[in-house]
């Protein structure tokens, strides 16, 4: 019995370390400490389990750990920071598949008499786990651009998706009523897999920050559900912490887009829409400026705000942007960065890219701080962002973007907008900013344009 007390105490210790780990993430100063606390908690949990449960096939166990390390270590060491969203999607896929497989194993282990509570939790755990697996695989494929980032739209697609989930849940219920009907289990798994696949196929690339956060939450919740099945409290705590983290991030992303969960999941935003008649009539012209023109404007500036978006990541322009910062700072210009919560492909993506380029993190401003500062800015430079700067979100009630909190870039004295072409942003909406008299459009690849501005300034 004393052995069990030791094991349970170690589990409590691991849970406390996990909690402290998240607490550490509240500040950059303590974050690394938090990560180490988390690693220590994991080690304690694994050692405690190996002490308590006698695994006979240590050869297989060690083999599995080696395979895990072979997959995990190279990714961890070599992954470019621009690819962190893909890696996150992949780890959600791995995590949820692991949980779903253990749930499946548990079903066959307990078969044929499983009490109804356990079966209900098992079924929801498996449905959640398997749908998160395919959903995350599709998210990965979209982020890695293996498949088109555009949402797959066809008539009645939401009906079809929900039908898949409905069938999976119905099969789960049938198993709760009679858990010995093992033929239903593979069917339930297939429908859950299909639902996850269809769900994320219908979501556009720029909604990925929200989708990743939601999948994060699901992966955590399915781990917590597994904890219920195994009566393992550590798993409940760790899974729930992960679940609530994903939930909060998803809420923040939705709020930053002024959209609801349902709208993100089933709205199909980002599909090519037919041009509305309204704007088509008036031919509006845009004047293209050169990088040299921008350099001339920047020369006399005191405060410059840089507004990064996914385009900066796509063009790998973060190092060029940092060079621009250095050149301008050497001339006494103050530089700040305005970070919109949904800029990039996952929560916090821009912060990581700029940190990688060695931008000091106290120069990274959140939306509210940045918006207070825009009226004092001499120049705002938009690098690879679009919808998050569109003033239509404030002024045009008929715009799909209306109501979305944006960065008030238009309030700066001069706006420099670096863009590949005049194409509309992800939401398929024209950006009012292009046509303002104080906007300078510079067309070209973000990295190239920024480098040319730097060169012009150096002359």
């Amino acid at each position, binding site marked *: 019995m004393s052995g069990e007390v030791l094991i349970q105490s170690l589990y409590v210790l691991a849970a406390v370390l996990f909690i402290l780990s998240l607490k550490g993430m509240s500040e950059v100063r303590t974050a690394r400490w938090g990560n180490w606390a988390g690693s220590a908690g994991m080690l304690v949990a694994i050692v405690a389990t190996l002490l308590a449960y006698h695994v006979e096939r240590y050869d297989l166990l060690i083999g599995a750990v080696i395979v895990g390390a072979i997959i995990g270590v190279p990714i961890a060491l070599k992954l470019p920071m621009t690819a962190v969203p893909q890696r996150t999607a992949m780890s959600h896929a791995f995590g949820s598949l692991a949980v779903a497989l*253990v749930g499946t194993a548990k079903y066959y282990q307990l078969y044929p008499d499983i009490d109804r509570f356990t079966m209900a939790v098992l079924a929801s755990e498996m449905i959640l786990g398997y749908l998160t697996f395919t959903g995350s695989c599709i998210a990965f494929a979209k982020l890695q651009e293996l498949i088109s980032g555009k949402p797959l739209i066809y008539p009645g697609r939401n009906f079809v998706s929900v039908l898949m989930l409905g069938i999976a849940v119905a099969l789960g219920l049938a198993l709760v009523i009679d858990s010995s009907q093992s033929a239903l289990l593979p069917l339930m798994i297939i429908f859950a897999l299909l639902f996850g696949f269809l769900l994320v196929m219908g979501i556009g690339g720029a909604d990925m920050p929200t989708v990743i956060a939601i999948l994060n939450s699901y992966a955590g919740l399915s*781990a917590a559900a597994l904890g219920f099945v195994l009566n393992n409290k550590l798993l409940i705590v760790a899974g729930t912490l992960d679940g609530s983290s994903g939930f909060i991030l998803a809420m923040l992303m939705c709020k930053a887009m002024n959209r609801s969960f349902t709208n993100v999941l089933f709205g199909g935003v980002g599909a090519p829409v037919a041009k509305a008649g309204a704007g088509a009539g008036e031919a509006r012209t845009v004047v293209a400026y050169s990088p040299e023109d921008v350099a001339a404007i920047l020369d006399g500036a005191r405060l410059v705000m840089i507004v990064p978006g996914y385009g900066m990541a796509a063009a790998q322009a973060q190092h060029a942007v940092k060079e621009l910062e250095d050149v301008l700072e050497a001339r006494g210009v103050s530089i700040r960065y305005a970070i919109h919560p949904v800029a990039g492909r996952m929560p916090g993506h821009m912060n990581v890219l700029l940190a990688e380029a060695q931008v000091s993190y106290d120069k990274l401003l959140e939306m509210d701080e940045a918006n207070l500062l825009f009226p004092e800015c001499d120049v705002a430079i938009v690098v690879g962002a679009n919808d998050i700067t569109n003033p239509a979100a404030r002024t045009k009630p008929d715009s799909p973007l209306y109501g979305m909190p944006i960065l008030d870039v238009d309030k700066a004295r001069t706006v420099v907008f670096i863009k590949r072409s005049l194409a509309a942003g992800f939401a398929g909406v024209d950006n009012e900013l292009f046509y303002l008299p104080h906007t300078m459009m510079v067309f070209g690849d973000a990295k190239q344009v920024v480098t040319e501005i730097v060169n012009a300034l150096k002359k």
Partner: protein
Amino acid sequence: MPEHTVLTTQDIVINVLIFLLASFLGLELIRHVSRLLHTPLMSLTNAISSVSVVAALIVLSNPKNDFIMWLAVIAVALAMSNVISGFMITERILLMFKRRGGGERE
């Protein structure tokens, strides 16, 4: 350690209570996470929730047949790859966050 195959009502009530408390705690903790760190937060929570490797180990300690055993072995490999790369990537990202010029003052 005895295998609990059938849960008592008391177990269930305690587990639900733990779930609720962990939810409140989680929401409180995450709300205070710096916005700068949302990306490393995600890789960290990902690694932490891969403590499901513990569940795979428990199943592996008492597999009824080879099929169950292999499911658990695959789960161990998947979860361990998350654990290893999750903590390592978080460390790599956090090392990049530096305050420059202004020294170490807050």
